[in-house]
């Protein structure tokens, strides 16, 4: 099938390897990958700040780009939730309401697409490291993703998954929250980092680069040897 990739703005600019890994994995599985280059951002920053008109302006440009997609795949639970859960709300009672609902129904977070749609868990990946998994809140609670990422990690050769006590606790990123209330965001991140450190894992893996940007930012500042990596990059290690 043709898989249309939605690359979040921060993945494009800061973490391209996560996107590249997704392309390579999907192509190895025999799918054609499309990437609408005109898409810049899903509109979540203004949406979560309450500026829904501005969010709608951005999202209205996204919709036609995805109108004919067979499946839209996003390597982020957060932007995935924006398209899947919040676009139908944002466009309620507008002419684009139907289109928003149709796209919502065809949108998948990357790990869930592999496991639930394609029925694939073993990608032949090798990653001989001890890792712990961070559940991004949007993926976990808006999209209900808990098992898919773990099913995929379970098939990675050499990988040891150690769950941390605070796996489901928010890391404190929260989009604009991280800079509006940096003191609270940082305290939450410290709790997360301490819990991950307790597992003595080498890597924190997640399906959300935005959480990892915050967590890695704290770890680097603390001088911690713990590293962060996107799930797709782990699955792409051959």
């Amino acid at each position, binding site marked *: 099938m043709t898989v249309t990739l939605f690359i979040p703005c921060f993945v494009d600019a800061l973490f391209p390897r996560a996107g590249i890994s997704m392309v390579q994995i999907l192509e190895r599985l025999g799918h054609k990958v499309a990437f609408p*280059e005109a898409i810049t951002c899903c509109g979540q920053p203004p949406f979560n700040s309450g*500026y829904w008109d501005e969010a709608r302006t951005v999202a209205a440009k996204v919709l036609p780009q995805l109108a004919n997609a067979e499946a839209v795949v996003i390597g982020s639970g957060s932007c995935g939730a924006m398209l899947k859960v919040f676009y139908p709300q944002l466009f309620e009672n507008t002419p684009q309401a139907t289109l928003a609902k149709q796209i919502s129904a065809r949108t998948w977070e990357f790990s869930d697409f592999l496991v639930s749609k394609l029925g694939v868990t073993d990608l032949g990946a090798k990653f001989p490291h001890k890792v712990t998994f961070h559940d991004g809140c949007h993926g976990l609670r808006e999209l209900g993703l808990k098992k898919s990422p773990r099913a995929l990690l379970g098939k990675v050769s050499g990988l040891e998954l150690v769950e941390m006590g605070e796996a489901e606790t928010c890391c404190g990123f929260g989009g604009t929250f991280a800079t509006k209330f940096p003191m609270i965001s940082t*305290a939450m991140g410290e709790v997360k980092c301490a819990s991950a450190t307790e597992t003595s894992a080498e890597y924190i893996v997640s399906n959300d680069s935005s959480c990892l940007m915050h967590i890695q930012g704290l770890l680097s500042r603390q001088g911690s040897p713990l590293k962060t990596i996107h799930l797709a990059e782990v699955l792409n290690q051959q």
Partner: protein
Amino acid sequence: MSFVSQFKAQAQVMAGDLRHRKIIRTALRNYEIVRDVRKASFQDWQGARQLAAETKWQAVNHLDKHLEQFAAKLESRGTKVHWASTAEQAREIVLKIVSDKQAKSVIKSKAMTSEEIHLNDALEHAGLNVVESDLGELIVQLRKEAPYHIVFPSMHLTRDEISELFQRELGSAATNDPEELTMIARRALRKKYLTADIGITGANFAIAETGMISITENEGNARLTAALPKTMISLIGIEKVLPRMEDLALFLPMLATMGTGQQLTCYNTLYSGPRQPGETDGPEEWHVVLLDNHRTELLADAEQRDALHCIRCGACLNVCPIFRNVGGHTYGTTYSGPIGSVITPHLRGLQDWKHLSSASSLCGACTETCPVKIDLHHHLLQNRRNAAEQKPSFGEKTAFKLFAFAANRPALWNFGKKMARIFQPLQGAVQGSALDPAKAWTKTRDLPPLAQESFKDWWRNRK
């Protein structure tokens, strides 16, 4: 200082207070263990939540009918029912009863509604001696501070701190034995029950069908508060209504499970009226004050009406990473945590309290845990939207307009990305200083470098 400045200043202090973080974490870890044991004893916890939400939906969506039935039943057994639209009216009603009775002293059991209308201040101002009989409430009363948490008013204190407080205020000997600390409080309270002219309670549930109130507690203090003084006053938020007596079969264990991790609390009592002819105990008079105080405005908001389902179990506070890091007092409101952040803008004004809805990562742990399925974190998002629609901040509105303008012009967006990449080293040079445009981020966190080749570049080069 504005409410938002106070919140930010206090949050700054508390978020870095590692001692506080440890105390709350330890207390809540114990709570989580017992809560989960009790949840597992429900045959179908998610089914129970659904039933509770539907029961509360019915109660709240037919509130008028249920309240009239509740009041009529109460009156038929001689209880005087008062309707208070505002906090001021509620205080006046209570003060009038107190003055009619020429009362000098009041004993109270735990009631968040009384905190909400600042009843203790009003009573003390009128010259009355007011004593809280719930141990946690007594502790914060002696410290002259507000309850830290809806269910655990003094959870932020250690036993040693409580012992020092009792030594100073009650003249007791030093001890950090919890039983002895409880006995010290009980000895002090026993006299107060016997001499109080008025007993004031809240209610956990108001049963419309039978005209009874249900009070759930662990110390027996509410029973004594209701039984010993000649006059009893119960101050109840109108959303406490449950349609049927049998609803308690679900709500009592649910409240105990999520509130304190108990199967049931130690004492569950139903009060149906003042002392009836032939009865040997109970108050001679019972006044029920039904408090609106902006609840009907929340009722009128179809989107957020379910916030009136709240049974004040405090479960959303316990799982909230914001609450756990900034603590209950930082909110500056009677109701803290997620439920407080949702309803305070309705109760006390959206523009003054919208910052509580912004101070959230929208993680949704609250919604996931809420036993009556209030859509808490989405309501925070709606409050943000409503606040921005009603009175947009010029700076934010402009910033997001520019953001949308650039996002809809891919060439401009990509040019911006290139510029950012060129200028990022300059940011590195001023990092942490007042000149740093990213200082809200970089004060505590490193900023990742922009990739030399973005995904889009890679995609184009590949083709």
